[in-house]
């Protein structure tokens, strides 16, 4: 839990849940597990607000609670972790992926679940159906069964999972041992991916536009809706790990497409698809697949003859990036996709890309040289990279000061005399990747802060434009004349309109930049995590 991570988590919580939740959340991040009384005491926030904040955090899975560690029966302690909160940054990517895989229905299901934290299947289906109906033409509505089938598909492919049932909080039964500190892993429960039998007959309801007041009543009505559908108490949440595996596969496929060609990437895509369910998330490589199986599973649009497939597979195996490895000869050749190696290569390419963009292609040459040759003396670096001595020295010292390159001393004599010591330059990929990851967190936090600043600067203007829009809307609804409308529109002057437009562009740019940095974050995080398990 580094300072940068805490800062970013604070900003994300503030944007999504508000200041109070952000305060409670960051406090828990910095201080570890605490019970309710301590939180109230240290943050100075009222009991009521703290309780509500904790509810929000627990609802979204960012906070877990467990019995106190001091003694059984001591007050429950609450704990948050950075990882889950940082996922908030990736919500747009999850939603977009669901859209590409399962269309608008899938997109809305994931969006609702991300916004609410967890929901039952029935409430999800109803809400999504209503939302889809809202956007459809007059007279058409979305049937519940369509949404249910999309939901079931998401569960089948493990993108959604059941929330693990909470152990009874605050058990007064002295016989029960304290619940373990680590939260139960959803997949340890056998019903994790079982769709419950629900009776959901109906269609989405369209919300009429002049029902502003009635919206409140409708919302209250849904809460008191005593319709039961057979799945009470079964809550669903988004399975982030599954999305991450999907992103990882996508990254590998596009890397193969860039390095080799489209057909090779299709072959790798097929192999990964076949291994989706048989490979564990932390595996180093997929289970071996025989060339025969691959040939049978290729999409029908790729009509390549069997010997050509063998050639492509051989080329993939021979490629220095080692995306694919050969594991045996049976069945026409057994092949695996080297997942961890591919991640390491992608991480290395990311590091090289950063050095290249930041310091120039000659520094990048030195960086790649050191990655290949591990340890080199000053003179050797100059000779291999064919860069004049003065410039090479300058570049190496810059890289050294930025901690991208390290210096290793090897003494010839025990007294470490400088004239009798070898000084070797080296690059360590893993620590450098970690450092770059922290820089990425800081970058995203900077972008968010700039975005908030830009909005604050133009707050007055934004409020004015909102007021004018509201006036326009009400005038239109009550049937005003065109002159009146234009009069109101002209209350915003042309330069103000320009300013608003510029502001809009700025905010969009900052938003999309956050997503771009998140792509880098994902690659580096996956790489760092893969080295932890292997």
């Amino acid at each position: 839990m580094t300072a940068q991570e805490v800062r970013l988590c604070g900003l994300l919580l503030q944007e999504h849940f508000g200041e109070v939740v952000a305060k409670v959340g960051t406090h828990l991040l910095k201080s570890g597990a605490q019970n309710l009384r301590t939180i109230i005491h240290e943050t100075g926030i009222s009991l009521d607000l703290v309780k509500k904040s904790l509810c929000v955090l627990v609802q979204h899975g960012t906070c877990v609670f467990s019995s106190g560690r001091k003694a059984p029966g001591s007050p429950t302690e609450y704990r948050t972790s950075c990882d889950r909160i940082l996922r908030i940054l990736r919500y747009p990517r999850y939603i977009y992926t669901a859209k590409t895989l399962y269309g608008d229905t899938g997109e809305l299901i994931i969006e609702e679940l991300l916004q609410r934290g967890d929901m039952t299947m029935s409430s999800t289906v109803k809400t999504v159906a209503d939302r889809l109906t809202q956007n459809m033409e007059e007279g058409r509505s979305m049937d519940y069964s369509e949404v249910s089938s999309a939901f079931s598909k998401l569960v089948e492919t493990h993108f959604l999972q059941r929330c693990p049932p909470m152990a009874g909080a605050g058990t007064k039964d002295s016989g029960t041992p304290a619940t373990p500190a680590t939260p139960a892993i959803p997949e340890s429960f056998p019903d994790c991916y079982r769709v419950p039998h629900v009776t959901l007959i109906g269609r989405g309801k369209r919300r009429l536009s002049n029902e502003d007041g009635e919206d409140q009543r409708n919302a209250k009505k849904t809460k008191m809706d005593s319709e039961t559908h057979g799945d009470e108490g079964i809550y669903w949440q988004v399975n982030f790990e599954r999305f991450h595996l999907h992103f990882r596969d996508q990254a590998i496929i596009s890397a193969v497409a860039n390095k080799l060609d489209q057909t090779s990437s299709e072959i790798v895509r097929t192999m990964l698809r076949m291994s989706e369910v048989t490979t564990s998330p932390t595996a180093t490589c997929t289970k071996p697949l025989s060339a025969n199986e691959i040939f049978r599973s290729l999409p029908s649009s790729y009509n390549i003859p069997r010997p050509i497939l063998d050639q492509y597979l051989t080329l993939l195996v021979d490629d220095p990036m080692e995306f694919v490895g050969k594991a045996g000869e049976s069945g026409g050749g057994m092949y695996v996709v080297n997942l961890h190696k591919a991640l390491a290569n992608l991480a290395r390419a990311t590091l090289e890309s950063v050095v290249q963009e930041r310091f120039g292609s000659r520094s990048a040459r030195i960086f790649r040289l050191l990655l290949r040759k591990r340890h080199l003396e000053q003179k050797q670096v100059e000779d291999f990279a064919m860069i004049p001595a003065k410039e090479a020295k300058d570049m190496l010292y810059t890289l050294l000061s930025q901690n991208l390159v390290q210096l290793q001393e090897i003494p010839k004599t025990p007294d470490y005399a400088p004239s009798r010591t070898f000084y070797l330059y080296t690059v360590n990929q893993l620590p450098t990747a970690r450092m770059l990851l922290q820089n990425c967190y800081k970058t995203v936090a900077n972008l968010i802060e700039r975005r908030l600043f830009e909005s604050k600067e133009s707050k007055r203007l934004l409020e004015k434009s909102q007021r004018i829009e509201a006036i326009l809307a009400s005038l239109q609804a009550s049937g005003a004349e065109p002159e009146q409308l234009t009069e109101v529109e002209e209350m915003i002057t042309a330069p103000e309109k320009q300013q608003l437009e510029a502001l809009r562009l700025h905010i969009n740019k900052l938003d999309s930049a956050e997503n771009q940095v998140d792509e880098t974050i994902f690659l580096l995080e996956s790489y760092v995590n893969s080295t932890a398990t292997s």
Partner: protein
Amino acid sequence: QTAGWVQCEELCQQFPHGITDQVIQNDMPHLEPQQRAMAINKLLSLGQLDLLRNSSGLLYRMKDMQSTSKMKGSDNQEKLVYQIIEDAGNKGIWSRDIRFKSNLPLTEINKILKNLESKKLIKAVKSVAASKKKVYMLYNLQPDRSVTGGAWYSDQDFESEFVEVLNQQCFKFLQSKAEAARDSKQSPMVQRNSSFATSHEVWKYICELGISKVDLSMDDIETILNTLIYDGKVEMTVIAAKEGTVGSVDGQMKLYRGVNPVIQPTGVVRTPCGLCPVFEDCHEGGEISPSNCIYMTEWLDF
């Protein structure tokens, strides 16, 4: 006495392969051994005789007229220094090493070196490794590569532009070969194999281009190709080749091929923070912060 050594000289000239003491004795029986010795010494000091030893005893031989005229007027010390420099061949020798070998004091050495240089017998060549260090070698010798730096150095300056041009040309050659292979639409194995070029092929292409003033060897081209590998633009494999195949070295051939980058420039470098030179100093509320960052302002208005 004076006639003695003149006669010895004539005798030596008569017998260019050298004469022994016995021969002198036979020729000039009236000469005392002492006088003989003095005559020989005189000739030696004049630098006209070489003193050699063979199985039967000492041999006195006339020195080559050319070298004698060169060394005329030089004394023994100079001759010694000259000998040492000559032995160093075309690698040259540093003044400090001359001192070690000859055991002469530094001031003497410097005087002698200046002398020899003015007589155009030796020359000083600046070593490319340490620009202050000078190595001495015979005047008419070509300095060795390790001193001048080889093809990449001209007058102690590293020819960066030349290296750059070669780098680009080699890459273009490999790239066009790879493209031709891709467009041929043959089976993938054939495509890949035809996109490879041996270092020999690249060398021939560069030589035929004629952009190099100096002769480049295949090793030179291979160092250029290695820099392309470190640029991430080229990859190399080694295959076994029959001895005698054109371009093979020690039964191996190196093949090079242009490659595509494996990822696009990564997300973080598309933001100002990814390239910011004052990234470390930036924090909210400070002199440099996201709110007042000028790089961000420029980037947003772009």
